[in-house]
């Protein structure tokens, strides 16, 4: 029961974040949404792993947290690099 509610809530959050990621409108909004999506995925996997008694999934969620962070940093860095050349800020 608790599991169902928790996972349902997390999925709902992910859906909302996905909506923001799809809607944009700026690149930064998408990154923000991606970040939130990522952290919630981490939590989801941790919750799922503990409740289904497969604690090895927790390793996975540690890893996801790392990847998520690096992904966000990479996006930022590259956007910055691009903007040095042209002013693609809008959109």
């Amino acid at each position, binding site marked *: 029961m*608790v599991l169902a*509610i*928790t996972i349902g*809530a*997390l999925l*709902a*959050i992910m859906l*909302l*974040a996905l*909506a*923001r990621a799809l809607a944009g409108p*700026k690149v*930064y*909004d998408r*990154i*923000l*949404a991606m*970040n*939130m999506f990522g*952290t*919630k995925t*981490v*939590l989801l996997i*941790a*919750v799922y792993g*503990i*409740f289904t008694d497969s*604690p090895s999934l*927790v*390793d996975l*969620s*540690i890893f996801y*947290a*790392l990847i*998520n*962070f690096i992904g*966000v*940093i990479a996006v*930022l860095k590259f*956007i*910055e690099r691009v*903007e040095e050349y042209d002013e693609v*800020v809008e959109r």
Partner: protein
Amino acid sequence: MIVDIISTALFMIGCLLGLTGAWGLLSFPDFYTRVHAASITDTLCAACFVSGLMLQTGWSLVTVKLLMVLLLLWLTSPASSHALVRAAHHAGLRAMTWSFLGDRS
């Protein structure tokens, strides 16, 4: 028993916080307000979930790993929010001002 209740409560708080944040992310008017909504709730939400889980597992290696998840989220999530806002600010993305809000209403 009590542990169960506490962890359930923590989960519920976590869900609530997470949903609030996501709702804010979706419905706030501009980027900076969205960051505000998302990043602040994110930290506590993660804390609630992970501590709830730690109560469930009891004391073992998994608890340590969960603690690592929590630390990692606590470190990375604000850092990336910070970098994000900074980048947006440098790129010249302007915050929505009150006067502008007033204009719209």
